[in-house]
């Protein structure tokens, strides 16, 4: 059993099924969605088992596969799952069937819709387990096409422009990233993440860049900065990092809610994951010089997006800006990793704290944001139109369960201690305070504003006198409750017992931080 290529199985099973679904005629395949759900669930169950097995010995990458693919580029078909990959595989396993089930009542062309979801499921797993850039990029790009169609064909009015914007921004980001990484690959002769990280650890990376890349006599530091800039920019568009975030609010707004769940819960994590795998090795050589402006922009983005969220009427857009805000903390942490430590143990400990926080926050935000957008979708469904913050009130009296569970999810998003949103944020702030204190001080205001607009949302929609919509507003159905409860439970459990995740992550965190010796 252990010799089966499990990672390939979980990737290609949904991918190929999804592609087949894309060619199915809508009217003749009414059972297709059931088959698709089965495949999605099966993939997820296997993925969870893989995660559990993997964390038994978290210091060694598990389920490695390697086949020669394109020798002329030195590219193999290589997959593996270390602690970080395992975390993301787990997240994918949780969110994808959730989004699939949330889409059950989609109104037209169902096989193609579910086909798109399945292709995204498979390609996400591919992105998170690829050992080299070629394969990473392969799955990354493949995920774009179905995402585009999901917004364009099943979205709400305004989808034409948003979907095109989303696609173009993403493609431009991909190409910029490709350019940057190809420079690295050309210099080191390898596309493998592990090999490039090793060269970075030896201090060799800069020399390789200098000797192997043909440039005029440009100072090495500039060349490294350009390469890091390309990689950073390319991935930053995906996270998204302000000011390259413009595609997100419209896209999240016009996408059907289940698609937004996938976009925010999983696809945004591709960008952060990429930055950890690809950006960090370059940090020692280029980041220290440009750290200040980048950190400044990040912190401004955190505050700006929080204010922007506060100003939204549409709660879908509010949560969209809130996502930008939350991921901004992760970006702040990531940039803080670029601070020069020179062997100072204390600072190295702060960095481990930051990286742990980023990973936990990636997971926590994935779960919380998906649940929140699920609820938004549920509300839209009941109200038959977009949910505006000022049009409803007192829904608590007619839908106490929803008020309670959504409230809990909102508090998790605020970062209430005891819920999983707190741990990640706390660790990030703790570390950043030690590394770039001024950034942490300013960013704290972002937390404050977040608390304000989220609580205001709860108050306006659930509390207070009953608005006109309260009369016909139904509470959570059994299906809703079944779908949502595991996540609610997770929010509490992981809030109290973060080590359930951290135990599997610590080895890889230590590995990454000790590789950044500068």
């Amino acid at each position, binding site marked *: 059993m252990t010799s089966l290529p499990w990672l390939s199985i979980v990737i290609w099973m949904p991918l190929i099924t999804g592609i087949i679904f894309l060619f199915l005629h809508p009217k003749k395949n009414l059972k297709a969605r059931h088959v698709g759900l089965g495949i999605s669930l099966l993939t997820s169950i296997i993925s969870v088992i893989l995660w559990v097995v993997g964390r038994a010995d978290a210091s060694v990458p598990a389920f490695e596969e390697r086949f020669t693919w394109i020798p002329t580029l030195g590219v193999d078909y290589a997959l593996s799952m270390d602690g970080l990959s395992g975390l993301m595989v787990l997240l994918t396993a949780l969110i994808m069937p959730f989004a699939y089930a949330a889409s059950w009542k989609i109104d037209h062309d169902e096989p193609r819709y579910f086909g798109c979801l399945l292709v995204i499921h498979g390609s996400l797993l591919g992105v998170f387990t690829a050992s080299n850039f070629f394969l990473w990029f392969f799955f990354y790009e493949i995920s774009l096409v179905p995402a585009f169609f999901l917004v364009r064909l099943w979205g709400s009015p305004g989808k*034409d422009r948003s979907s095109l914007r989303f696609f173009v921004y993403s493609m431009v980001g991909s190409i910029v990233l490709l350019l940057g990484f190809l420079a690295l690959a050309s210099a080191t002769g390898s596309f493998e993440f592990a090999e490039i990280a090793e060269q970075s650890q030896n201090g060799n990376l800069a020399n390789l860049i200098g000797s192997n890349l043909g440039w005029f006599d440009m100072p090495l530091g500039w060349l490294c900065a350009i390469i890091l800039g390309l990689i950073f920019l390319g991935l930053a568009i995906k996270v998204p990092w302000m000011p390259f975030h413009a595609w997100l609010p419209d896209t999240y707004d016009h996408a059907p809610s289940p698609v937004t769940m996938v976009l925010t819960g999983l696809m945004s994590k591709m960008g952060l994951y990429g930055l950890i795998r690809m950006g960090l090795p370059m940090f020692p050589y280029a980041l220290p010089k440009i750290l200040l402006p980048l950190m400044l922009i990040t912190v401004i983005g955190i505050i700006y997006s929080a204010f922007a969220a506060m100003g939204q009427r549409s709660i879908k857009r509010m949560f969209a800006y809130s996502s930008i805000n939350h991921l901004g903390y992760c970006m702040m942490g990531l940039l803080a990793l670029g601070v020069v430590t020179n062997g100072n143990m204390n600072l190295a400990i702060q960095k481990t704290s930051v990286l742990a926080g980023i990973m936990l926050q990636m997971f926590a935000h994935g779960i919380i944001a998906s649940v929140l957008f699920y609820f938004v979708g549920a509300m839209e469904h009941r109200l038959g139109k977009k949910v505006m913050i000022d049009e409803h009130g007192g829904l608590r009296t007619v839908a106490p369960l929803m008020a309670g569970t959504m409230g809990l999810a909102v508090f998790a998003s605020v970062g209430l201690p005891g819920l999983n949103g707190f741990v990640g944020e706390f660790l990030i702030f703790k570390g950043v305070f030690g590394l770039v204190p001024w950034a942490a001080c300013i960013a704290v205001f972002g937390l404050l504003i977040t608390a304000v607009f989220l609580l205001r949302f709860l108050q306006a929609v659930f509390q207070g006198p009953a608005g006109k919509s309260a009369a016909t507003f139904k509470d959570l159905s059994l299906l809703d409750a079944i779908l949502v409860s595991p996540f609610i439970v997770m929010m509490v459990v992981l809030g109290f017992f973060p080590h359930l995740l951290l135990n599997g992550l610590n080895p890889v965190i230590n590995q990454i931080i000790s590789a950044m010796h500068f």
Partner: protein
Amino acid sequence: MPAKRPDLSRRLALVGTLISALIALVCAATYSPVDGNSVVDITKWNWIPSLGISYYLAADGISMVMVALTGIASVAAVLFSWNIEERANEFFGFFLTLIGGVYGVFISFDLFLLFVFYEIAIIPKYFLIALWGSTRKSYAAMKLVLYSFVGSSMALIGIMAAFVVSGSVSFDLQQLILHPYAPEFQRWAFPVTFIGFVILAGLWPFHTWAPTGHVAAPTGASMLLAGVVMKLGAYGALRVPMTLFPMGASIWREEIALLAAIGIVAGALVALVQNDFKFIIGYSSVSHMGFVLLGLLATTETGLNGAVLQMFSHGILAGLLFAVVGRMVYSRTHTRDLSKLETMQVGKQLPFAATIFLIAALASVGMPGFSGFVAELHVITGAWSSYSYLALMAGLGVILGVAYSMRALFTVFWPSASAREPEIGTPLSGLTIQEKTGAILLVTTSLVIGIYPRLLLDIIAPSLQSPLLKPLLDQSSTL
């Protein structure tokens, strides 16, 4: 063939191209270097012994890749020319002559013979465009042919010079390479010969014949011209000046590489502002050929692998794009104007065409899974190690490619609902079986190579180690 029976002509043409294609593919599949020599002889007769000219056909890995491309592209082109009614016998006559000449160039290892086939390929082009073409066909045909003649004359000068300097012994390439050409000689011989060949490959700024010519040509001809005939220039450039004059190559390569990179960006920029659907594809061909040339001029193994791969990939994809624009859309809508097409609901009426164009557009901007991605990756990686700033320009070209492709795709096939009130004109007829077959053939080829590029790379790589090309690669590694 009787002019009144177009169906006979087209069937015979299909049979002919299919047989050649099958032979080509079988040969490519079974090709392997003999005794460590990557050049495999096919036939050799003495032709004009006093001038050292022989009828010498041989193939190495790169030839085999190009032959395979010609096979597949020619079958597809015939399928997409199924609707030619007027003087079909002459059309297919010229068509098959062109294909014959192209095959000949790819497997000639006697340079005189190569030149003869090169010229044989030019004449049919004129007639195909002038008689069966559209926009400004006489002008376009004449321009294309004149540029081709000028280019081939320059190439001939180089070939003759090599022949004379090496002692007027033989035109056999493998003999010619044995002579050490003086650096001063190579300094002028290389640019003359190289530019001569790559005029036909669309090097900027000598490329203007290409969009005009390809737009004016009938669909099947455009597919061949942009898909295969432009590759004759690049192939010739690799076979002759880069092989014979490697020192000259290392002297001139940076300047010419800059022209190639400018072509990538300029072609894309011009494509972005076109209002004629076919011109968009025409200029995108110039842009994509820039990648081939950039890969060639990087003169590293990765770059050359990329160049040959891109020749194959673009050959297939350009054919596909012209097929959609010319045969699927234009022959039904009788307009190529984007603003008119926007109102005709082409996407709704021709969903197969829309899907194929989407796939072709994605493949040509380098979506992983298709051949263009692997080729582009090789070229850009190669460029980074030779001229980093040109790699950045190439990346810009890719971004612009996304822009003009998406613009074309969405304006023609999926205009936004708010664009304008759709006029319901006469409904567009559905796609024929020939069109669907041709499209699927081309898409599948690109997909197969995209997923398993070793099918081609395994044949190309050993040829790069042959005595023909090794001096070139050694030159660049000593820099």
